[in-house]
């Protein structure tokens, strides 16, 4: 029989399971003093509130009106995307000297929540640009690379993407096949990348202006900056027929003896795992924030509808089963929201970045499902929005790590630590 964990006094725990002995050597604390937003806790709640209010106005006026059409036409609206730059959103976490807004992780979460409140698909395209590409460069690239690429990415002149997954490899990412071989002053890259958000920008097959690419150099993985002028690089296909997130475009990218200059290597050869670890937390916490936006919107939708719709001579809000949808959705949204914001504010760790997505993604899907249920037949048609958000929510259980991957990571981490004391530490 396993020991009754938790009931016994703490001393029986094997080894202190604190941050001191985190199991992954790749999470060595020496990696943590880079210029990263995770160390940036300077914003006040008044500024966060002002950011949210600004976004709410912007979203209601600029984003909500075309959301349904973008979904139906599977259209990534580049002009609308560029409007985000006017507010300074495209480089939200990047340093000011490169044209960024230098805000913190909570601000990034607020932004994703508010954009996703109206259009999670557009928000995913935003995330691929601002978190997967821009923040990655801001954290990992050299000064001269930052100077070359960040200003145009922050201003919206360029759109960026990040290419990690492949047709045959997703979760098992270390098994990627795309390879890069150095020949003189170039790397020659061969392979295919799959599911790349922003990988293609329009119907003519125009690739992203910056592709932040992972490829194997021997046994190790290295990171490269690829531009459209690169010989041998092309868009294989724009992936059509996605369930949701249809306002974002998704592509397969093809590298056939693609020549990338050595200056475009990020960091050193074999550095990618380090790079990924530095960016992972903000990526997942903002994906979770998309779930919050979906949950909040669906709550608003079901509450509004339950008050207005009448059946058997009273508003449906008077029925206990409808109240159950509303009350459970509210509590589940709040629980996810508390976890996401606490993580963004002060508990960023790999463990929690898996945790927030594991909680927020199913919450979003479930709350969207409740909204559809409360709306009855209207819940099943696009005009009432809930079904779109329900379709969008499903992506959060797959993209940026499947639920199973999060479960695998979390349990591996906890089992290696041999204990869990986080609540005791906090209060």
């Amino acid at each position, binding site marked *: 029989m396993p020991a009754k964990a938790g009931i016994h006094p703490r001393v029986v725990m094997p080894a202190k399971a604190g941050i001191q002995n985190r199991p992954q050597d790749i999470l060595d604390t020496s990696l943590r003093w880079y210029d990263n937003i995770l160390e940036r806790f300077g*914003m*006040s709640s*008044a*500024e966060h*509130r*002002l*950011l949210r*209010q*600004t976004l709410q*106005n*912007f979203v209601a006026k600029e984003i909500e009106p075309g959301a349904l059409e973008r979904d139906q036409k599977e259209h990534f609206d580049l002009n609308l995307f560029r409007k985000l730059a*006017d*507010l*300074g*959103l495209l480089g*939200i976490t990047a340093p*000011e000297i490169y044209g960024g*807004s*230098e*805000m913190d992780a909570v*601000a990034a979460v607020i932004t994703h929540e508010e954009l996703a409140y109206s259009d999670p698909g557009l928000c995913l395209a935003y995330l691929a640009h601002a978190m997967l590409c821009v923040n990655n460069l801001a954290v990992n690239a050299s000064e001269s690379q930052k100077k070359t690429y960040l200003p145009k990415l922050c201003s919206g002149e360029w759109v960026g993407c990040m290419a990690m997954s492949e047709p045959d490899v997703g979760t098992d990412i270390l098994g990627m096949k795309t390879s890069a071989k150095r020949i003189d002053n170039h790397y020659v890259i061969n392979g295919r990348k799959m599911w790349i958000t922003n990988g293609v920008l329009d119907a003519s097959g125009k690739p992203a202006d910056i592709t932040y690419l992972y490829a194997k150099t021997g046994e190790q993985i290295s990171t490269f900056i690829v531009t459209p002028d690169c010989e041998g690089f092309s868009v294989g296909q724009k992936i059509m027929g996605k369930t949701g997130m249809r306002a974002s475009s998704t592509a397969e990218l093809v590298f056939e003896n693609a020549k990338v200059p050595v200056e475009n290597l990020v960091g050193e050869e074999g550095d990618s795992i380090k790079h990924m670890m530095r960016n992972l937390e903000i990526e997942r916490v903002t994906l979770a924030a998309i779930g919050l936006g979906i949950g909040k919107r669906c709550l608003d939708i079901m509450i509004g509808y339950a008050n207005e719709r009448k059946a058997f001579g009273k508003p449906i809000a008077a029925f206990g089963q409808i109240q159950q949808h509303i009350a459970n959705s509210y509590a589940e949204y709040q629980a996810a929201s508390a976890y996401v914001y606490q993580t963004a504010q002060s508990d960023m760790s790999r463990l929690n970045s898996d945790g927030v997505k594991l909680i927020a993604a199913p919450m979003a899907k479930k709350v969207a499902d409740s909204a559809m249920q409360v709306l009855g037949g209207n819940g099943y048609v696009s005009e009432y929005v809930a079904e779109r958000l329900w379709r969008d929510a499903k992506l959060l259980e797959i993209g940026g790590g499947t639920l199973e991957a999060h479960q695998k990571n979390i349990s591996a981490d906890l089992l290696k630590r041999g204990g869990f004391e986080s609540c005791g530490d906090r209060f």
Partner: protein
Amino acid sequence: MKILVTIKRVTDYEAKLQIDSSGNKIKLDGVNMIANPFDEIAVEEALRLKEKHDGEVCVLSIGTADATQQIRAAMAMGADRGILVKTDNPLDCTALSQVIAHVAGEEKPDLVFMGKQAIDDDSHQVAEMVAERMGAPQATQAYKVSVEGDWVTVVREADGGLETVSVKMPCVVTSDLRLNEPRYASLPGIMKAKKKPLDERELSTLGLSIKQSMTIQKLELPPTKTTGEMVPDVQTLVSKLHDVEKVL
């Protein structure tokens, strides 16, 4: 040029308002508060004038400490500094105009830019009173504003149509709805706003003898709208209006 813009913190126009148990106050608990939209338009116009003619935009609010939020929001749009005159008691139009004219007397702006009215009590009187107290000319309900030398030319929306007036600075101008579309605060703007000076003063320290000439006795919600009714013909309509609604 130096522009003083006034901002009032008001309840959100989308909020469902309720009356407090005292019967003469709106319940503010949990109600979203915003900057008076006409004032935001005034801030935007002041910023545009500054971008064209140089100078400074200072925002002034009178109210509770929470009004710093609205001042900071204006700073995030681009205003240079702010003044908050703190008081927990709501002031009526006469008293507000007294305070604004007092601050204008200290600041000596070329232009006092105000909203034509605040959307909470819709009085539409304060700017006119401020101009009177300052002994300055006024041009209200601006639809278009341009500045040349010492003169501000305002195309205003009057009942009969558009009217063009020119007033000499220092003067008071108020914004109408169609003057412009206020910009969104930018993220760098939000980050810069916290470093801009905000001067908070207690109303009592201004040395004014404030005279409130109005007290609110009782508030009532507007009657709820009942659903319309289709009538078969004009005759029935006329007789309903005459016999039931008694409006004819």
